[in-house]
């Protein structure tokens, strides 16, 4: 089938390098030829901190590396939001047009999988219970909540328990969690309590950054919760 570029979010290499093989396994099952691109960043950390010149310089490199691609995939709602909604606005004139053009080729991984013509041919099975954390960018910028819920629903034997206060942020917020640590911790305590209240011991999300935050909050407060990315869940359920 198609040739796709798979972008590794910069923090993924730090936190969970194993994620990439889950994503490759999933995409190859769909018949795609995958090229992994690492060492790039969308520029969001600097952009969200107000450093737009630095964000533009870094984001430009990412757009350049996708110049020849027809499909570029990011396993993150947050990075995808940056590339599609914000990064192009940092450029003017002809560069803006080029940036817009490249940005339209980017897809968030679950959206790409969900719309893939070969998806109906795959079978997913996993017995157990999970809950789902909707990352803020995935929910409100990309409006993809139904995509994740739909994919989880394809997994035979898996019960999904929706979170109370599903729309509430986990408190990660990029540099926010370092700038306002007490607020960030108070937020994750609430999120961990919501996850715990479902009874599920696995929380799934499309964004690894939220999961790192929830995992740190769960470990720190002694709540037995495992944090799985959507990629890992689908890869493990793949028959």
């Amino acid at each position: 089938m198609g040739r796709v570029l798979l972008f590794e979010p910069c923090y993924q290499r730090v936190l969970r390098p194993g994620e990439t093989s889950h994503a490759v396994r999933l995409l190859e099952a769909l018949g795609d030829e995958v090229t992994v691109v690492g060492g790039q960043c969308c520029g969001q950390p600097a952009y969200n901190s107000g450093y737009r010149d630095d964000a533009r310089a870094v984001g430009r490199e990412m757009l350049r590396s996708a110049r020849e691609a027809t499909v570029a995939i990011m396993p993150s709602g947050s990075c995808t939001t940056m590339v599609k909604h914000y990064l192009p606005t940092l450029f003017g004139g002809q560069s803006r047009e080029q940036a817009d053009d490249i940005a339209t080729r980017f897809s968030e991984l679950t959206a790409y999988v969900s719309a893939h013509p070969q998806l109906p041919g795959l079978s997913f099975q996993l017995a157990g219970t999970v809950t789902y954390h909707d990352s803020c960018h995935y929910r409100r910028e990309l409006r993809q909540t139904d995509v994740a819920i739909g994919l989880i629903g394809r997994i035979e034997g898996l019960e999904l328990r929706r979170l109370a206060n599903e729309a509430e942020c986990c408190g990660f917020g990029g540099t926010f969690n370092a700038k306002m640590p007490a607020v960030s911790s108070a937020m994750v305590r609430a999120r961990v309590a919501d996850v715990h209240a479902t009874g599920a011991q696995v929380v799934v999300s499309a964004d690894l950054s939220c999961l790192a935050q929830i995992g740190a909050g769960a470990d720190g407060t002694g709540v037995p919760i495992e944090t799985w990315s959507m990629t890992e869940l689908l890869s493990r359920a793949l028959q």
Partner: protein
Amino acid sequence: MSGFASRAAFDIRSGMPEASTRPVMRQLAVDTTRMRHRIAEDAEQRATAARADAIAHLEELHATLRARFAERGIGYHLAATPEEAVSIIRGLLGNAKRVAKSKTMVGEEIGLTHALREAGMEVLETDIGEYIVDIEGRGPSHLTAPAIHLNRSQIRTILEEHGEDLPDDDPTRLSLVVRDAVAAFFQDCDAGITGANQVSAASGRIAIVENEGNVSLGASHPRLHISVTGYEKVVRDDAGALAVLEVLASNATAQPLTSFTHFLADPMPGQERHVVFVDNNRSAIAASERYHEALQCIRCGACMNNCPVYRAAGGIAYASPYMGPIGAVVSPLLWPDGRYADLPFASTLCGACTDACPVGIPLHRMLLDLRADSVRDGTTSSRAERAAWRAWRTLFTRPAAARFSTHAARLALKAGHRTVRRPLDGTRTLPAASPVRRPDALIPLDGIEPLAPYVSAIPHDSEGKDLVTLYRTRADAVGVTVADHCDPRPGDVVVEADAGIAETGSVLLTGANAALRTLLGGRRLVIHLHANTLVRWPRGLVTSLGSRNALILTGASRTADIEKNLVRGIHGAEEMLVVLHTTPEHQAENGQVPA
């Protein structure tokens, strides 16, 4: 740590926001979301259009308004700065001694209460929540629920230290104790100061919403009524004001409308009425390409109700009269001297505020722009921070260097895990360097119920109901008794309604029927309403508002200022009886509510 971060950390350590603010805000967000599904499909679009029109034509609308006010005998005043506003109000108050003030955020903005007290006047905050936070001394923590950071036992302590004798902390008792103190003050005061929600340029009327009845008292009892509001709070006409009112209370407090919606016109004989508009950089914001939409705000508070940072930190930490996401946007714009430059960083940019805003303000995008402004102007960034981003840029514009640095960061994280085993601040550990997977984590939970169930929005429930049935349902929901006749009782005040609103359970009183002094004096309010005057939405009242005072009543006066517990019958009648006159031909004319 910056100002907000350290103040928030302090309040979080006290346990306050986690115990009271968050659960109340979560429930309020659920309730207002349900109401949002119940209002007309185009209501938010119409309100947004009315506000955007006003912001685009501020000078024109103020010129019209000034002429209308002159015809009505209402004083028009425009203050460029908070200091000028205070000085105008002091001049208007003359030798007044006792001033009854109701809720006005612009009053907070210009430091009015403090300034008048400094000048030797006795000022009483007459809104129950404001009365409490005034004694507490830290100011309001929410736009519509000023005392929401306090629980009932803290409020009891505050009132006891103020000299009240209280046997328990029952919210009804606490509310009524404050009510009695306020009512006593109104017996003898020289001036009433209120805010204003929208001022209609075409009709020269001041729209104010309230639940307790203290605005009704302040606008009708003292010989002098001063309304203080923002320069942007003008709207083209009554239709525009009604468009805003259609979305305001539903998004603020999950009410269809507040108990009282005033359209104040000419002062009563012997009474003086003035409106003081405060600019304080609003004309500059209106002219700004990126931030003018911030002036569309109708101060409903939906952004903070839905904000996870506000829920965690509470409103006091913002140290501004405007808190939450809208506060983080307008505070640095109203005071561009840098004192609020850190507030735009008090957000995870989750976008819940933008989604919740009924008038389409792109709040989280404005926060991003304000962050870039503050870095450009050097108001928040340190030299070390700029150097760090510069270094980051050097690494991440070179893929090999970026790969190397992420690899190094991974090694550092693993080393960190070997040295730091406990959570850094009692909550979070370092992020896992590779998650451990337990074989039994996915354990099936057949038959074990979750502790907190997922709540989804409830759809509209009025389709197919005729206006009379709908009116009865909604009136019942706001505590109004609807009957086909009335057995008179002593203490009844009997008035005739000009119209009724089916979707909100409201009645419209105009002219002599809207005389506040009479209405507030009754023990029971009996209102005759003819079914053929029912309209579906507030917008339908535009032809029946008349040109004098008008008042929309939606249930008896009430408060929910203490932990959001509802207490009915604050100022004025506790009981409201609507005698609904229906005739067969009226029912036939009304027909069905269109789907």
